């Protein structure tokens, strides 16, 4: 009986000890660069991280990929981050207004495209055929791809007539919370058509067909990147951004389907 009670007290003591010594294991760590990036940048930034680690021995790049909004909230709540790359300007601007990031640059551009599953059940051949699709899945207007989609559909309605807008609206079955969900619904054949970024379409080439959206109605998605004001490793963060904007970095981005940065010298966005 007594022994059991001592075990309790012993456990309690252990817990206390662990709580009372924060940071005891923090010494002798390699330099870490923490990069937060929009979900659509996953493959590219993982490739860039390997490249960076080769060029800078002793540095470990830690990447975290999620929706730009989620990452923004984490940064606002005090996450220790060096670099933030967003899929749209909105969240970067919000952080800039709070002085949490320093002078962002546009490092890449992405182009929304129309995708249909293999077999093309709705038999769409051009973007103007979209109203023929029975099940359309797009991004929610609150997320970047959804906001771009709203702009595209608005322009399309002006070009192709109001019936285009009415028919498309009638057949929208779901407004997904991120672009990968839209892609999943189309690759699984649940949806007849969806609008995603060109880079996402390239990752699922075997299971979908891509239909370009005419430039007259399409929009360009710009990706800004910035060093955090409270970056623990600001020098590494700057080196990372320099790599992203360099010829090698831009080549890796282009291979994934991104368009190059408008001007490769770090231009400031307001």
């Amino acid at each position: 009986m007594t022994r059991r009670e001592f075990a309790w007290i012993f456990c309690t003591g252990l817990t206390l000890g662990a709580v009372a010594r924060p940071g005891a294991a923090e010494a002798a760590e390699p330099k870490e660069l923490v990069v937060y990036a929009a979900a659509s940048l996953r493959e590219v930034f993982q490739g860039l991280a390997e490249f960076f680690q080769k060029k800078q021995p002793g540095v470990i790049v830690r990447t975290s990929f999620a929706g730009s909004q989620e990452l923004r909230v984490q940064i606002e709540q005090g996450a220790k981050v060096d670099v933030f790359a967003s899929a749209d300007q909105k969240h970067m601007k919000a952080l800039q207004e709070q002085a949490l990031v320093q002078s962002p640059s546009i490092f890449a551009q992405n182009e929304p495209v129309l995708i249909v599953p293999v077999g093309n059940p709705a038999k769409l051949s051009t973007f103007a055929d979209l109203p023929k699709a029975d099940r359309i899945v797009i991004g929610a207007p609150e997320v970047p791809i959804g906001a771009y989609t709203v702009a595209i559909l608005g322009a399309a309605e002006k070009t192709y007539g109001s019936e285009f807008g009415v028919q498309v609206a009638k057949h929208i079955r779901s407004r997904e919370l991120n672009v990968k969900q839209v892609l999943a619904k189309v690759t699984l054949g649940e949806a007849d058509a969806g609008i995603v970024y060109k880079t996402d379409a390239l990752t699922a080439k075997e299971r979908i067909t891509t239909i370009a959206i005419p430039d007259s109605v399409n929009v360009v998605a710009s990706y800004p990147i910035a060093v955090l004001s409270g970056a623990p490793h600001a020098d590494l963060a700057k080196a990372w951004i320099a790599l992203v904007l360099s010829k090698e970095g831009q080549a890796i981005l282009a291979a994934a389907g991104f368009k190059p940065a408008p001007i490769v010298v770090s231009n400031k966005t307001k």
Partner: protein
Amino acid sequence: MRPTHRRQTMAFRLGMAFLAALLGTLLVLPFVALLLDGGPLSILRGFECALTLPALRLSMETTAIAVVVVVLGGTPLAWWLARSKWRSARWLETLLQLPVVIPPAVGGIALLLAFGRRGLFGGWLERTGFSPSFSTVAVVMAQIFVSAPFYLQAAVLAFGRLNQDLLAVGRSLGASPPRLFFRLVLPLAKPALIGGAAMSWARALGEFGATLMFAGNMTGKTQTLPLAIYTALEIDIRTAQALSLLLVAFAFVLLLALRRINQQPTRSERTVTAP
């Protein structure tokens, strides 16, 4: 002897209290923060979000249907599982617990692969002119999928613990199986069944991943409260906070009410427990 005894009791109580407080803090503090952070005004403004009412209504309706289906189907299934001597019954029991373990999004993909347009039964379903994906039916199916194990587990345990002598007496007195089940088994197991149903309902209410995957996100049709919260998070964290509070309050009141019901012994229970 006495003082040592008292000291041990004291140490024991302190140790217990400390560990309990540690866990309690972790569990309760986030809810306190949810309530207090940002102040009441910003939360009130969050309630004005257009997503709120349709989502609340949809969540109430779909979870009510889901729980009814779980209880109606789960009770006989658990009764059979609890009494079956087959080895395969143990296998099945384990299999039926799997939805608790797998990530809900995987559950959603599994549902799509089974009932989606190109799924295992999708072709057959589509010929009947009905395809569940992107419909309210899909929301209910996802909720049933993730929440049924909680009820099943509670019911199997409750049925397994029933006093076999009592059942034997009932049988010897000539009670038919249906009479035995409805007049003796169900009243005896009732508190556990209600508890299981409550857990199951709570899980259905919080269901997010499988719904998003299988049913999509459409206001008034498939956008339940958790999906609305996630959507609102893309607008403004305060709106999401307000919606989360609504979900928490709704769940709290219902779970509390169920607990109350459970504590009041019913008439049939009294007659059963009487010697």
